[in-house]
């Protein structure tokens, strides 16, 4: 329903025009000297807070070994079904890995499906998958947006934790082996 808006009469300073211009200039001039609130993206990047949920990545242990054992819990829990794992066995001829027995043959995360919810990180029993600070991802094809295992480790890097659960197991096995002989 239309209704009338009363237009208030201008005050004296408004009618004089210049005081208002000067007041506006003052605000503009103040920002000349105030610190910047924007940044030159992409040359400058914002500092990412800890626990930021960026692109999911696979991490290696401090000895540069694969942590993922392809238990496929992340694949199971992933709400948009972005994760696809092909499990495989660790060959017996890798002395520092053979005792883990299982590792992913292929690990794919479709970043066109990923919703950055972080459930994969939460569910991982081996602390092998982390949503890190990478937030900008682009590609020319759909295939490019699927991160394979190699790319995931490249993005993930190394996690400096010292759990080394499987090493403890291996050490116990060796102690037992010596005791037996």
């Amino acid at each position, binding site marked *: 329903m239309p209704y009338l808006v009363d237009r208030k009469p201008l005050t004296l300073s408004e009618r004089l025009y210049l005081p208002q211009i000067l007041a506006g200039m003052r605000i503009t001039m103040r920002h000349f000297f105030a610190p910047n609130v924007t940044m030159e993206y992409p040359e400058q990047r914002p500092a990412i807070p800890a626990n930021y949920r960026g692109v999911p990545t696979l991490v290696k242990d401090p000895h540069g070994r694969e942590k993922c*054992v*392809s*238990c*496929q*819990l992340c*694949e*199971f829990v992933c709400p948009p079904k972005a994760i696809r794992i092909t*499990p*495989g*066995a660790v060959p*017996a001829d890798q002395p520092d890995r053979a*005792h*883990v*027995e*299982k590792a992913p043959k292929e690990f794919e995360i479709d970043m066109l499906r990923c919703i950055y919810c972080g459930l994969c990180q939460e569910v991982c*029993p*081996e602390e092998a998958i982390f949503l890190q600070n990478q937030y900008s991802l682009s590609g020319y094809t759909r295939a490019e947006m699927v991160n394979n295992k190699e790319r995931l480790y490249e993005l993930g890097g190394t996690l400096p934790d010292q759990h080394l*659960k499987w090493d403890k*197991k291996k050490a*116990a*096995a060796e*102690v*037992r082996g010596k005791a037996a002989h």
Partner: protein
Amino acid sequence: MISVPKPADLVTVNIDGRDVAVPKGTNVIEAAKLIGVEIPHYCYHPKLSVAGNCRMCLVEMGMPAVDPATKAPIIDAATGKQKVNWMPRPQIGCGTNASPGLHIRTNTPLVKDCREGVTEMLLINHPLDCPICDQAGECMLQEHSTAYGRGYSRFVEQKNVKPKRTELGPRVTLDDERCILCSRCIRFSREIAKDDVLGFIDRGSYSTLTCYPGRKLENNYSLNTVDICPVGALTSTDFRFKMRVWFLKETPGIDPESSFGANTTVSSREGVLYRITPRRNDEVNDTWMTDSGRALYQQVRADNRITSPAVNGVASTHEMALRAAADLLVGRVVPDEPRGKTAHLANSPCPNGVAIVGSGRSSVEEQFLTKKLSAALQAPASLVSRVGEGDKLLLSADRNPNVRGALVVGLINKLPDAGDAATSPRSSDGGVAAAPVKTGGLEGLAADIDAGKVKTVFSLGEDLMAAGLTAAQLAKVAIIYLGTHQNATSAAAKVVIPTLTVFEKSGTFVNQQFRIQKFAQAVPGPAGVADDLATLAQLVAAAGGVPVPADLGSLWTALAAEVPALATVTHASLPATGLLLDATPWAALPFVEGETLHFKPAATAATT
């Protein structure tokens, strides 16, 4: 399944305050299961002897109190009911049979304490392997620890370390750390497989499952030990680390390896088969199946699978191949010589010069359509026989799963002659050293080809060369081959139409007991391969027969109308455990099967 007993054979027991009538001899675990009360157990298995060594099924038991002198019931003044004398210590449910008036309590603090204690003790040396353990998701220890465990660990010492990948045999890998010493595998090997190779050595927490020195767990039933292992100690070398079980879709199937007809569960994920495990059917296979039957899923993705139709060896479309096949069948194209020369054969068994080789590996529905085709063409149908040696357990002598289906629908009226062309088992049998199978039954066809009476042979997945025909005989005729895999016959065939394996279609088989059992499609067939029923129905129509429906539901209406043995059956109403058909019309036939589990051949059954 327990058959319905006479009321006199029932005893009434009271479980958690509820009276239940169970057959005499039922043990407490099974009795509780009848009323939906779960008594957790590891070592007890319904088809094995009771060992009673896991102690997980401890329950409180009591008997109604009677006066020792007068035998008169003692009434509890507070409740007005007969008093129950509870035993001071818990008893194992698996080792106790139901007796009249027996009272069981499964939810008291004492029972709860027992379960927590047993679970804690089993978890002391159990490794935290669940992320890499193939049993995770179907592991009794996982389930019972969650349901009945304490929920936290008081154990601070080092866990025991044992060998992680011992190969007990060609198909079974043992992870000793996970073993909870339930001895199910030992009892299975001893009692069912009759190959007593497994046993425990060492003592206490160093106890280790192992094979007898110099022996291996390599019998054709070794993978059943993997199925019954309540934890992930025994794993299938083939399935190891392939897929987590919670992703697998389970489809009921029937083992097509022999006429035994073991019930199976076919597990697949997104159209890929991963494993075949037995499905319990107490009338047929109990809870067991053969290793060789489990390896059959590999044929689905075999290299020599036929995936596209071919006419004269050139890849073609399904429609063109069907038309070419129909032309050959009705004689529009004369393969080698003018049709006129065969005109004098009008009185012969194959007036059109067409012979049909049906298959004991086809489903009942396909055999019904084959019969329709045979009738439309007036072409005689024969079956290829496959006779091996039965192992008296779960592998019968007749290696065709459905010869009786062909009898029931009337495709044949006598058994195919046993052949003597020994064929080696297919390479897809997964390394199980199967006994040689004698293939044959086509002597009549061979004679007809030699006599020039047959010009066209229609083979439903049967390799004619393996069944005793020579290359020269094959060269004399035009062959239409409907099959799944390449072989000498498909190479010689004029028209090749690809078909589906048993895992890619639904249907029914009639096993050696004349039990009709249905199987369902587990995975879709390869792209471009039409449904077998549709292919056959189109051929029947093209051959001038009465059009028949090509979908299971309507086809079963036709089956019920035309096949007396199936008059009252529909595909939907077939029970999951199968339906026994009346076998009397075929009682006189000399079936080749010997005695197996839950089956005695008619001749032996009569004498014993």
